[in-house]
């Protein structure tokens, strides 16, 4: 049985689980050393997610943009590209969807899809630029996307500050016809900010799976990711696929921004610093091994950790920074899945030797 788990397909599932386990274990040790009771800490963490329907609703709300940013990172990653620019693509998506939400008057059936689509398009454009630079001029996408993040944040802040400032730091509220907010979901979860975007996020998971695994284009994209030269030899246009991949990845990120803008806040605000939703997407995609279902689950984990962290400090007196450390440790252990494999193989060979 053990053998099957580690050798078969399930291995992909086991590594993240072990990584999460180690992450929590190390977190417990740190709590012990810093003078907190790890059991109290983790009880507070779990209660902070499941203890009240409100907390659970907020957790689902938090995971919605994380799903999108995770999908965005994973989509590019499947084509062999590292899209670090999800953060910026998400920010422009947020801004443009809110812009459409404020300025356009239309019935909901047109307005809402239009606003989401506008957000996705803005994100796609933000992904298209590094895609073209990579395909055409061989500029490394990591550098370009990082820089595009700053451009996105400061340009959006500029527009909000100078043209759309309503009160304090934010724009006006969007029209109700463009809002994803749901009284039904909100009442169901005791006034949390859970919105319809959660269902859209689930649909997006299916969309990514379908594109990548069920279409010819998806096969090409993955093929470029596996081996550029072989794909080129097989008659695929590597450059077109790179541009396409970055654009679609950006569209996922932009749609994620639209979820935040149209669902959670119903406005855009001046961002004093990055939202981190995009950067967390890298971790979500990594832990979810770039699969739709994996991303959904790891987005839940990360959303829960972030929501529960607040309860940890309120109820157990654990510093919120500790949760950041646990997240970092989980990622560390996922990234060192090679280490886990190696240790396992040593254990195996030792056994067989006996």
């Amino acid at each position, binding site marked *: 049985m053990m053998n099957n788990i580690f050798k078969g397909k399930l291995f992909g599932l086991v590594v993240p689980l072990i990584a999460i386990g180690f992450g929590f274990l190390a977190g417990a040790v740190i709590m012990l050393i810093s003078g907190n009771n790890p059991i109290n800490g983790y009880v507070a963490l779990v209660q902070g997610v499941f203890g009240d329907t409100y907390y659970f609703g907020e957790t689902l709300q938090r995971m919605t943009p994380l799903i999108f940013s995770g999908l965005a990172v994973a989509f590019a990653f499947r084509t062999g590209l590292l899209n670090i620019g999800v953060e910026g693509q998400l920010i422009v998506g947020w801004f443009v969807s809110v812009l459409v939400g404020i300025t356009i008057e239309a019935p909901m059936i047109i307005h809402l899809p239009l606003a989401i689509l506008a957000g996705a398009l803005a994100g796609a454009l933000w992904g298209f630029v590094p895609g073209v630079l990579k395909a055409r001029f061989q500029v490394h996408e990591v550098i370009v996307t990082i820089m595009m993040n700053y451009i996105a944040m400061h340009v959006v802040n500029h527009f909000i500050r100078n043209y759309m400032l309503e009160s304090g730091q934010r724009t006006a509220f969007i029209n109700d016809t463009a809002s994803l907010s749901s009284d039904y979901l909100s009442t169901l979860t005791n006034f949390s900010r859970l919105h319809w975007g959660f269902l859209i996020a689930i649909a997006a998971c299916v969309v990514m799976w379908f594109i990548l695994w069920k279409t010819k284009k998806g096969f090409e994209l993955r093929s470029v990711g596996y081996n550029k030269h072989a794909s080129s030899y097989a008659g695929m246009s590597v450059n077109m696929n790179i541009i396409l991949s970055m654009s679609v990845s950006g569209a996922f990120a932009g749609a994620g921004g639209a979820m935040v803008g149209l669902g959670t806040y119903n406005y855009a605000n001046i961002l*004093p610093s990055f*939202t981190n939703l995009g950067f967390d997407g890298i971790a979500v995609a990594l832990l979810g091994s770039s699969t739709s279902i994996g991303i959904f689950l790891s987005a839940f984990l990360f959303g829960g950790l972030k929501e529960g962290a*607040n309860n940890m400090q*309120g109820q157990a007196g654990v510093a919120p920074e500790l949760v950041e450390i646990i997240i970092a440790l989980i990622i560390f252990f996922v990234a060192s899945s090679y280490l886990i494999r190696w240790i396992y193989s040593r254990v195996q060979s030792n056994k067989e030797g006996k």
Partner: protein
Amino acid sequence: MKKRFMMLMSSVLAAGTLLAACGEGDEDTTPVNDGGNNNENEAAEGNNEAAEDGEGFSSKMVTDVGGVDDRSFNESAWAGLTEFGEDYPDVEVDYIQSNDASDYAPNLNRLAREGTDLTFAIGFLMLDDIKTVAEQSPDQNFALVDDVATGEDDEPIDNIANLTFAEHEGSFLVGVVAAMHTETNQVGFIGGVESPLIKKFENGFKAGVKYVDSDIDIAVQYAQDFNDASRGQQIADTMYGNGADIIYHAAGGTGNGLFTEAVDRAQGGENVWAIGVDQDQALTEGEWEEGNVILTSMVKRVDQAVYQVSEDTMNGNFPGGEIIEFGLEDEGVGIAETRDNVSDEAIEAVEEYQQMIIDGEIEVPQTDEEYEEFEGEL
């Protein structure tokens, strides 16, 4: 197998220890909130509403992204609550830190749902969130620091008390100090995120400087971040480099970079000064071998405001729907107690102008428009 496993375990533990050691350095600056938990049991015993000794009363706060150790107004607010908890030992006080803007609403909700009698939202960034939460928990009392929450009809909201400060008046006074101390005839201002609130600091400061000497140049730059010390240091570097010798900041944690830069330059033999904000920052920052680079600070007594509103609420006088402005008159703002670096001349001038502001002889500008008008009249 077992042996291997043990080895793996011990390496994980070792890694944990190492990382924890890194974390411990932070311990000095990240006080884990014990203040309230000690009293929790006592407070839970009796539920008498607002008894004299404060039994059963709870007053808690949500910090903004600066965190409770920002050496600035979050810290000041927590100091006020701590003091309140010490004076009334049966009262429960506590805080929750927010890591980013998306934490505000859940944190405020968390406190309201726990049945906290008075929940403080520290900072204007929480304006929208406190409105929503206050609406959803109409029986709970809230207080907002630094802004005024109004409902759709522009009327104040009944279960929110609004605590504001006359920052422009305090900034005017440190502007006077800066003007009297500058040798290069150039001073600077570093703002956090550009907003009507921080504009009050900027315009008050500029007005104070120009009132003393209208020939002094004032450089103004916003970091667009309250929590980025390296950006603060960069800006300070540029300003000092361009000839300013005194810089005032209203930028929360970003301002700590200003102090780093000032200390660096002071150690290099340059004669530069920094002016702190919100708290008497010379007590915690700016020290070097031969003194302190902090000339003075514009203190904003968030602690007193928090204390006072907590006490009033405990005694059944919650100032809901009211806008309370703490100004020079009631010592809600002013220049810091630490005055080692300030010349007697400047202190005399400050006292004179302070009286003039209280008497209404000087109308300190708050917005850009008011400042332009003010400058035109000089």
